């Protein structure tokens, strides 16, 4: 039993409970400090080297039924966890600048969500994974429900139904996998040992159960419909969207559980899964082009990114898989940051209008793309940072988005050149929608003048920009983390091919 990893997972939840006792005015600061402390634990784990099972904890949870509390970490889990632990305090710090006294429940909910997401990445028992996977839904729904916009109840109902519908099918698959494989426990390693003896037609059904759940959470077409509503209705600051972006763990689930457990199914029907992923990527970019609302645009652009992530995972190729994990991790940084940028824009536009944030119409106007133009003249630094983040999101070389997208397409090409060729057009399409939106907002003739970045906004954006540039030119540290895990997965796939 190792306390470090458990502390890393549960510190945010404990802090969330403690923060209820903290006076409302100080809650924001408390939550940010808790987040930073948690990040420090994460960095400690990273620096101390994640040797095999060094940080594992395996104890009986439901003895007799084979359910264990099993958490562990490896390169992939750690990379994604670190991104989460980094972005949560940044987001919460930005939130403190917008705290109008009504946000006191936001901090504990966000921290509770962080525990859920870290648990998802660390769980090595499938029931435990399911508990984290679905449990995180509750704080997420409450964030949307408490702080969302007028149509939030509808949006949260849609999200909850999609997630739980998929999740319960996955639960059935999890139970079925254990029974049919004859495994004594729900530990991933035990299941991996026995799963090959299941007849293939049964494997297909089990795989589909997992796929539905992860397709909802990736999201993949046609299970994506909840996401635009989710982002469109969330709190205008963009911090809840940041949490939602981190909670998009479908790609990770496919990589960690679905593929290693059912490599035959993934292999034999590979073109179906790849086509689905490639179509999602194009579809997202295509629909994004037609959006007039900043947040919905980012939502569809996220769908497009996630399509690429899934494409990389389904390519069953080392380059593609590593690319998928890198893209998943880095977009957790810059996509989340773009939501914060939108939050900063919204704040300025509301002020321009003299509008009231609690009024729907004012918010609609504030989030409309192209209503206010030419901001670069009055806020050049803001324009520069935003451009950098947009470029990262398009996948411009030299920024963090590039390495992931490039590797994915490389891997996909090895697996199926035709589908890869379709997917490449996504990159062009996403450049088109992103730059159009950027041009409308920042360039063209200035209609208004706004304030440039404040000191607090600088503090929020500087670490993000630094990381996006750093990993763009030097992604080796991240790649080193991911490589061994991908090699392991690839070993399983190769063995299955024989």
């Amino acid at each position: 039993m190792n306390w470090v990893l458990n502390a890393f997972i549960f510190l945010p939840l404990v802090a969330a409970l403690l923060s209820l006792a903290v006076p409302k005015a100080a809650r924001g600061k408390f939550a940010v400090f808790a987040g930073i402390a948690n990040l420090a634990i994460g960095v400690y784990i990273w620096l101390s080297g994640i040797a095999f099972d060094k940080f594992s904890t395996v104890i009986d949870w439901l003895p007799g039924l084979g359910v264990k509390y099993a958490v562990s970490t490896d390169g992939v889990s750690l990379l994604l966890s670190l991104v989460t632990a980094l972005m949560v305090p940044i987001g919460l710090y930005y939130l403190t600048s917008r705290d109008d006294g009504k946000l006191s429940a936001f901090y504990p909910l966000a921290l509770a969500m962080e525990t859920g997401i870290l648990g998802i990445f660390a769980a090595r028992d499938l029931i435990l994974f399911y508990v984290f996977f679905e449990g995180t839904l509750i704080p997420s729904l409450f964030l949307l429900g408490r702080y969302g916009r007028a149509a939030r109840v509808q949006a949260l109902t849609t999200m909850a139904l999609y997630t739980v519908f998929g999740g319960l099918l996955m639960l059935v698959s999890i139970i079925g996998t254990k029974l049919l494989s004859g495994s004594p426990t729900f530990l991933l390693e035990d299941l991996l040992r026995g799963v090959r003896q299941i007849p293939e037609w049964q494997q297909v059904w089990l795989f589909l159960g997992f796929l539905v759940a992860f397709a909802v959470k990736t999201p993949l077409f046609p299970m994506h419909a909840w996401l635009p509503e989710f982002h469109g209705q969330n709190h205008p600051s963009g911090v809840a969207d940041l949490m939602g972006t981190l909670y998009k763990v479908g790609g990770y689930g496919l990589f960690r559980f679905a593929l290693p457990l059912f490599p035959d199914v993934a292999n034999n029907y590979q073109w179906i899964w790849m086509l689905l992923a490639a179509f999602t990527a194009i579809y997202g970019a295509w629909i994004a082009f037609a959006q007039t609302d900043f947040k919905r645009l980012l939502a569809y652009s996220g769908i497009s990114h996630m399509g690429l992530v899934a494409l990389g995972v389904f390519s069953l190729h080392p380059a593609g898989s590593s690319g998928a994990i890198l893209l998943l991790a880095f977009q957790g940084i810059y996509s989340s940051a773009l939501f914060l940028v939108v939050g900063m824009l919204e704040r300025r536009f509301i002020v321009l209008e003299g509008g009231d944030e609690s009024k729907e119409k004012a918010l609609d106007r504030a989030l409309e793309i192209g209503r206010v133009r030419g901001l670069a003249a009055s806020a050049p630094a803001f324009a520069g940072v935003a451009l950098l983040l947009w470029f990262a999101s398009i996948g411009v070389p030299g920024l963090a988005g590039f390495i992931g997208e490039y590797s994915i397409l490389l891997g996909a090409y090895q697996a199926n050149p035709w589908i890869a060729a379709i997917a490449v057009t996504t990159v062009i399409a996403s450049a088109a929608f992103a730059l159009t939106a950027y041009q409308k907002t920042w360039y063209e003739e200035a209609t208004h003048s706004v304030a440039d970045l404040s000191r607090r906004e600088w503090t929020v954006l500087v670490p993000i920009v630094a990381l996006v540039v750093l990993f763009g030119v030097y992604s080796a540290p991240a790649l080193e983390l991911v490589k061994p895990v991908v090699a392991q997965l690839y070993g399983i796939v190769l063995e299955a091919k024989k």
Partner: protein
Amino acid sequence: MTPPDVNVLSLMPVLVVLLTAVFATVLPFYTTRRGIAGLCSMGLVVALGWTVALWNQRLSSFGGSYVADNFALAFSVILILAGIAAIASSADGIVRSGSFPAEFFAVMLYAICGTMLLVHARDLIVMLIGFEVMSLGVYILTAFQARQQSEEAGMKYFLLGSFASAILIFGIALVFGGTGSFALEGIRAALAVAPANAPIVAVGALFILIGFGFKVAFAPFHQWTPDVYSGAPIAVTQYMSVGVKAAAFAGMLKIFGEALPSVGGWQTPAQFLIALTLMIGNLAALRQTNFKRMLAYSSIAHAGYIGLAVLSSPAQAYPAALFYLAAYALMNAGAFAVLNSISPSDDGIKVDSLAGLGSRNPFLAAMLALFLIALAGVPPLAGFMGKYMIFAGAAQSGFYGLVILAALTSAVSLYYYLRPVALMWFTEAKGFALPDLSSGMSRAVMVVCAIGVVLLGVLPSLVTNLVSTIGVFASR
């Protein structure tokens, strides 16, 4: 002449409840209603103490017709706790609708006595006696208020319930005719050697299934449930949906798991009943506008989930069913306790009137939200663990189709459970304020239920370790 085989120790839990009930019948002439409520709670606590004290001893009386094994004792704990919760929340009902006559508590204890007899019985006749004592008590409780709905509900329940009892008795008679024994072991032994009268026994099993199916509200024998549940005083509905259901399921598990597993003919109809129950319960709950009726329909749906355990093999299914019922008792008793304390009348409330409760009464709204989320089966709360165990048991016995159906319908249930939560916390009040009738007692019940719901969800092994062998005992 040998003296009858009576081990008073083994009878103590039931005797204590019975004696308390007798006192509660006589004493109202001399003391206050509050005193009677206190006496009854004390009696239940003492019975609970005896139940715990008898753990692992497996004492028996009446030549094995009455056995205080761990299965019976574990169910008794649920029944007694549900009784205490109902008595506590009936205090809120008194605030609302004036005084109940003190006999209310006596009748409640007689009903509890019946349920406990039912779970201890290992003989169809003793079981039937428990079943009838429980039913008669609950008929009276249902009709306890001088309101039209309450009287109508009582009458309806009594007429339909008597009919179901008649079918049950007919089934018992047929099984006796086919096997020559009332004892569960005897029936099992007879069926193991000479299946000559197989058709008679099969028909008998089917009738028993219908008789019990009525009490646990399997569709299509569920039609009484919404009317009776919404007509009865809320504290009674609370007990019915938890205690009566748990006892009836205990009876079913024993009869079908121990005595009749080798009989063909009831499993297939039972699967149909369960599938139908899952669909009707969940889909009908979707359409309810009255919160009390919604909980009534959702309790039908829960009967469907627990029903899966009746089909599965006892070693797995008994602990799973027990855990589910324990979790369900906590969640449902908690939800009804909150409902009771915010209802202006015993008709319950419109779901829409919950709007904005979160800002007006954060404590009650938080409690209700917790119970509803748990009922929906969202991890890491107790409802999820219960569902998981039931699903795992049923899957192990090969009922994949039913498990998938149960999973899909519980996704549906999320909608009607989360809507009130969303209304309470995410919308503004619309002028109409619900009262807060909660007493210290009922608040304590809610808090205890809430702690239990979280604890059983996070550390389910607290219960499963204790009861993991109850199914092994049975299939011995």
